[in-house]
């Protein structure tokens, strides 16, 4: 059974690219467009891994990460923050919020896949 990856991303293009990429690697992709939806979907579906965008409408990526990591049932799910927020200190904030890895856009699809595989092991 293929692993299920939750992509929380408001940008359609990014979702599509990730969807293509992940499906090509035989992952099941769950998608959420907002932080609230993402947290709710994570609670409901319990994915194996979450790819989290930071700049989201409403609940942002940091807060969503914090909520998921604050839930003991979901704490074990690896969260990889994927962001174009490349200002200094962003990565620190992301790690403080509880993410497991940090990837800046533009990402190399192959590098991202390698990172996903690393955290699913």
């Amino acid at each position, binding site marked *: 059974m293929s692993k299920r990856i939750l992509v929380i991303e408001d*940008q359609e*293009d*990014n979702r*599509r*690219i990730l969807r*293509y*990429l992940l499906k*090509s690697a035989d992952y099941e992709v769950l998608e959420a467009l907002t932080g609230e939806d993402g947290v709710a979907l994570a609670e409901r579906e319990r994915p194996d891994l979450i790819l989290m965008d930071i*700049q989201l409408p409403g609940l942002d990526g940091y807060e969503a990460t914090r909520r998921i990591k604050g839930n003991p049932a979901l704490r074990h799910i690896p969260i990889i923050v994927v962001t*174009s*927020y*490349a*200002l*200094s*200190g962003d*990565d*620190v904030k992301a790690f403080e919020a509880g993410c497991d890895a940090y990837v800046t*856009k*533009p*990402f*190399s*699809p*192959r590098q991202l896949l390698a990172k996903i595989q690393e955290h699913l092991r």
Partner: protein
Amino acid sequence: MIRIRFRGFSTFRARIFWSIIPVLVALLIFHGMMDLREHRRLFTNEFMRRGQAMAGNLAYSGELGVFAEDRQLLESSMRGVVGDPDVAYVVVYGEDGQVLAQGAGQNGGSVRSEPLSDQERQRLLQERRSVVKTLQGPAGPFVEFLAPILTEAAKSPDELVLGSRGPGPGAEKRAIGVVRLGLSQRGIEQRMWGLVRLWVGVTLFFFTLSAVAVYFFSRKVTGPVKRLTEHAEKMGRGSLDETVPVETRDEIGQLAGTLNDMAHALKGNIQEKERILAELQELNRTLEDRIRQRTAELEDRTDALQQSLDEVSAMGEISRAVSSSLDLGEVLDTVSAHAVRLSASDACGIYEVDPVRNAFVVVTARNLSPEFVEAIQAADPRQGALSRAAETRQPMQIADLAAIHDFPLREIILREGLRALLAVPIGGGGLVRGIVLYRRQPGSFAERTVSLLTTLANQSKVAIENARLFQEVRSQRVQLETLSRNMEQLYRLSTAMQEPLSLRDQLARVLEAARQVIRIDRFYIWEVSPEGDQLTALVGAGFSEDERQEFAGIEMPLAEAGAMAEAYRTGVPVAFDRQHPVPPELRLRPPYSEHRGLRSSAFLVVPMIARGRVVGLLTADNKVSREPVPAQTVALLQIFASHAAVAMENARLFHEIEDKGHQLEIASRHKSQFLANMSHELRTPLNAILGYTELILDDIFGEVPPQIRDTLERTRSNGLHLLGLINDVLDLSKIEAGQLMLSLGDYSMAEVVHAALSSLRSLAEEKKLALKALVAPEVPPGKGDERRIIQVLLNLIGNAIKFTEVGEVTVEAGLSDGAFLVSVSDTGPGISQADQQKIFEEFQQADSSSTRRKGGTGLGLSISRRIIELHGGRIWVESSMGHGSTFRFTLPMRVEA
């Protein structure tokens, strides 16, 4: 009275007396002895004759009795003999030597009844001569007479009785018996003793008589001598008036005469001497008087000289104290010390009367208790002796405070144990000031003391004024320095602290300090509006609470401000006082003239000029004392005003800058936000483009024909370049905003080099360039921002690959001087010396044409330099045209936040 004093032979009389008396005594004794001896001889002769006669008589008378051997007859003839007092015994012997009769004398004579010895009888009878012999009987010596009893050849007793009497011549006589008669010599002795007694009596009588005679004689002889002596003694004692009576013509009389002459001569002599003595005494007295007078004069002069000396030395010491130090305290101390000494006082105070507060100011107190000083300072000075003295400009004294009752400060002074006082005013400056001297003992201060103290006060005046002036100048200088420091502090505060009230507070403090130094009653600083049409009351000092409230925040149009407007207009200080009143056109106009606090007859307005503009006005007035503001104070206040003006202007400028800075900061924040947003907005579509391109190139949608792949590769490459540009701009904007922060963490230099190389290996391979890395094996782990260091290496290696057509690119990493030393060398064209200076600046490339050829923003080296510098390292290039380039940077191994 005759008094015989035995004085040995000391007196002439005694000598006469004692030289005559022994001779007299000897004479008397000799005469007596001779006389007695003669008498004794006479007595003895008589005694013998009497004895012989008696014995003869008895022998005669006894002739018959013996013849008859009639005892009775014998005894009767013996009777007459026995009755004689001298007869001791009578014995009549017969021819045969037998005792015929005997009788004893009256005076105890014992009868020698022994028979006559034959020898004696024979001799007596035959020789018929009487025998006398001296015997020693029991009752003393006695003489024994033996006489033969003779008869003239009578043959019978009748013959005898009838016969012829007496032996005729040639008649034969014969001894018929012997009479033995003992006569006691005691009678002779007794008579001798009687004679002796008589003699002694006569001698004594004569002796006494002669002694008296001698005494009187000697007296008579020595009397005139004694009188002479006494007279001479009197003369010796100086009594020459009595003359000695010349009684005789003898030597004594001559002596007396001579003595009288001598006395007379002496008297004359003595009178002469006395006269001379009197003269001498007179002279002496005169001399003594003169000497006394001269001594008194000298003493007076010495006193005067001493006082003058004291005065001179006091003045000298004061002068010295003044010249040696301009210390007011020292000068006052010297003055008070001398005042006490010169006036022999117990305590001294130098006081001033503060006319504004109407209170004593104790400038110096000597031997006065703190309680006294406090009491004096609390007292009303108008009631003090000093004020009275200052009014009359004459010293004033109170000889005994206890005796007067109308002196208000009496109790305070008496409580201190002081009774007398002398107040000496020290004139000048319209100030009530003076020395007050106190004594514990009541009594007036001498005229001399008062005048001395007056001189001292006059001398002190100059000294005190000088010292005060000096002190004032010095303290003003000190205060000015303090003010300047305050100003500096003010300036720093106003620039460093974003505290709008600090300037006002600080100015108020400085003004208060200035007021106390410069002796100005009140200060005020008015701020002139930038437009120069409005005055705003800023801060003041020396104001009552009411005035302060009245002043607070007053604003007035400059046109209405009278003298202040004049000072603003002309830019020079204006001053007014009672002598120079404010002209009508410069007076305040209503409603401002109705402010009581603003009105003053003596005031000064100093324009506060900074950067050629009057930024404010400093007003100073003596509203209370009404004293004109002295010229030197005006100068001081101008300096002060210029300082304050600079501070105010600085504060204003600072606030302006601060405002602008604040705005800039906001703008900058907006810019950063904009850039962040912008980069996000730019990168989101770019990410999508690059993402899709990569998906296609990764054959996710199936096999890509080579031509399309090539195009897609170019699309991707340009997209990445665009992304790099966007990132560079973003980085630079962050650097400029000071927002580029390092994320410090541990890293391995080898991994950093490796990461950079692996990113760029494909690029080097494309250009057939060798890419080498030499990392020293011993490099320790570093601490820094790993991502940024990789970014620098990417930039340097990327550039090297970009500009090198043939050859190799070498990366070396090692240690140098305790820091990492990393170099990136290429075999490219090299960089000219001029360009080496510019390439680290923004938007510069060695050759501007190369930018278009090689791409890039020209920001990479600039950003790299900033990153290295943020780490505390240094970056530079070594290159020469045609020989490639080597970029090197140092990096501290451990960078701490």
